[in-house]
């Protein structure tokens, strides 16, 4: 039953936060958007088809209302039995729910500790290699120049990404995989939300932040998709369906093809200082630091800024802009690595034009601090005080491809150009108000090998 405005403002929201958990407010506050009928179950685990709408004249994808990531360690030595049992559970969900936000998205991603400690011999033979980087596709997790020195580099065996417009679907999946199966020991639960404002209503990030009373909540624009005030799911800014697969762009050696249809996933938690963002950066500066310096034709209050292939910045653009203004924008800094630099024809015949985005982001806002649950609260610096942040989830063809993007965000460009900007300085815009608490890399096998990959060999 939806909360009335009076209930929301008058304290019922506070009671709901204390009793049922803050994220159940999402169900009360926003009915699920209408979704198209889903197609067949894709070969890839990470493919999750989203509907699109127009936002301020720009085509945007509508993210799932709820997202959750559960990380775990393996709690059994009988991997073959565990493989069988987990696959049976996952097939049950495949049969019951469509692979879209109206149903349920389940993506099982495996960390380096799993491959190194549980299936080391098979991993040496079958894990894909990044030919371009001359490295394995799955890399040891690292810190980046703008990360604090205490950013925790995690070593979970597995992460399960659950996505749906219906919280009950996610709850059911989490219970089945982690409570009933008995093969995992949960290390964390990370919950969040996104969107809900494209139809002109107050968005979920705004409503939930206001209900929780986090600092800066009042400053978030009413219909903003995410806490920071700008839409981030422009269709042209997200990788198309299969581009993040290991094999699509041709720089990954799949060896015997076991991981064909797989991808790389990076997971991090980032705190966002909303007051610093909205009280120290005026609208024009928020635009130039989010997108690029010189973007002067954005009307005050705009939330959805076009991210078309023809808007893509080159290394030369970035360098020249930085020399002139002393700044570089978040989006433009990443584009030399995150967008195709020339037209590309994939082995399946799909043509990807120059400027096409490669990463597929699945990030969502959160009030976790840093997680909803932690098995190691002291190590994770866990607190029950809500704080604004984002659980950043992104799929790239390889770990090195992700690292290229993330380094570019710090001014380290793929051709060796280094924009001489202080770490976390205001010139970096976004970075100065973000604090990354946790990071980990994962490999996402194709659906056919999603359950304890390589254990059967």
């Amino acid at each position: 039953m939806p909360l009335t405005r009076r209930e929301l403002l008058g304290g019922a929201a506070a009671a709901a936060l204390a009793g049922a958990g803050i994220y159940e407010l999402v169900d009360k506050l926003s009915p699920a958007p209408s979704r198209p009928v889903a197609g067949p179950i894709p070969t890839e685990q990470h493919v999750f088809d989203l509907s699109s709408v127009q936002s301020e004249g720009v085509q945007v994808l509508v993210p799932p209302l709820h997202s959750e990531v559960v990380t775990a360690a393996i709690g059994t030595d009988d991997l073959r039995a565990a493989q069988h049992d987990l696959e049976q559970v996952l097939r049950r969900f495949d049969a019951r729910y469509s692979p879209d936000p109206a149903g349920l998205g389940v993506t099982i991603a495996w960390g380096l500790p799993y491959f190194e400690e549980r299936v080391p011999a098979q991993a040496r033979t079958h894990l894909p290699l990044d030919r371009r980087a001359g490295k394995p596709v799955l890399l040891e997790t690292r810190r980046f120049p703008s990360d604090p020195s205490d950013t925790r580099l995690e070593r979970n065996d597995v992460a399960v990404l659950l996505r749906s417009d219906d919280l009950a679907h996610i709850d059911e999946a989490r219970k089945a995989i982690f409570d009933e199966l008995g093969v995992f020991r949960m290390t964390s639960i990370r919950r969040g939300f996104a969107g809900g404002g494209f139809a002109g209503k107050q968005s979920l990030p705004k409503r939930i932040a206001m209900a929780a009373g986090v600092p800066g909540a009042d400053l978030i624009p009413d219909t903003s998709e995410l806490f920071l005030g700008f839409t981030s799911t422009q269709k042209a800014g997200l990788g198309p369906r299969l581009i993040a697969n290991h094999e699509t762009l041709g720089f990954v050696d799949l060896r015997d093809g076991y991981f064909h249809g797989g991808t790389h996933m990076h997971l991090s938690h980032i705190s966002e200082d909303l007051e610093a963002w909205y009280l120290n950066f005026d609208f024009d500066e928020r635009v130039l630091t989010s997108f690029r310096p010189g973007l002067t034709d954005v009307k005050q209050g705009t939330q959805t800024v076009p991210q078309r292939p023809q808007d893509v910045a080159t290394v030369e653009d970035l360098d020249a802009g930085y020399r002139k203004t002393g700044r570089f924008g978040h989006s433009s800094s990443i584009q030399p690595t995150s967008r195709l630099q020339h037209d590309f024809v994939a082995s399946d015949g799909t043509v990807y034009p120059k400027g096409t985005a490669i990463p597929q982001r699945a990030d969502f806002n959160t009030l976790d601090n840093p997680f909803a649950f932690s098995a190691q609260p002291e190590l994770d610096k866990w607190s029950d005080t809500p704080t604004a942040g984002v659980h950043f989830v992104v799929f790239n063809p390889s770990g090195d491809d992700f690292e290229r993007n993330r380094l570019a965000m710090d001014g380290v460009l793929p051709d060796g150009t280094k924009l001489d900007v202080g770490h976390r300085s205001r010139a970096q815009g976004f970075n100065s108000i973000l604090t990354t608490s946790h990071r980990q890399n994962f490999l996402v096998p194709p659906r056919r090998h999603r359950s304890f990959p390589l254990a059967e060999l």
Partner: protein
Amino acid sequence: MRAWLIAAAVAAALALVPAASSAPAAGGCPAAWRSGWQALANRIQAPVYCPTWMPNPLDAKIGGQYIDINSIAKDRSYLVSFLEHGDAGSGDVHVNFRGYPGRSSIPTCTTVVLAGKKTLRGRTPCFADAAGVRRANGITATVYRVNQDADQWHILLAWRHRGSLYTVSEHVIRPYTYRQVVRNLDRLLSGLVLVQPER
């Protein structure tokens, strides 16, 4: 002691206890604060706005224990700032009053961006990101959320009176939240008293 003062101040402010006001002198500037504001008006030969209430624990006595900045520029514009800096992370309470006699436009401030070894200087409006208006006490003030220099990280109200620009701002920092600062500014605005210069 200061930490305790601020914690107590918040409790008082939330309960809307007028703990930091001073008795007005016949509907005017409070007697304990009047001499300083009158002296300011006299020095710049222009009206100034004296508050009749301040957020706890501050008072508005120019020359008193909370005065932080008392500055008059060559163009007669002034900045009077009151600050309580809480020890042990208890937070700050910081309120600024400005006036720009004979000037009604928003002033510009210098920006400094370090690009490697180069220092790039530019100009930006000192008060930006207008976010609505507040009306009280016959004043219609514009709310600005992004402000520079001594008003950085403050919410600021700006209004014009007879061709001059005036502002009052408060820092958004513990112990006061954004909403409490807006409420404090509303209360400050509704209690402002104009002090004319003595001829």
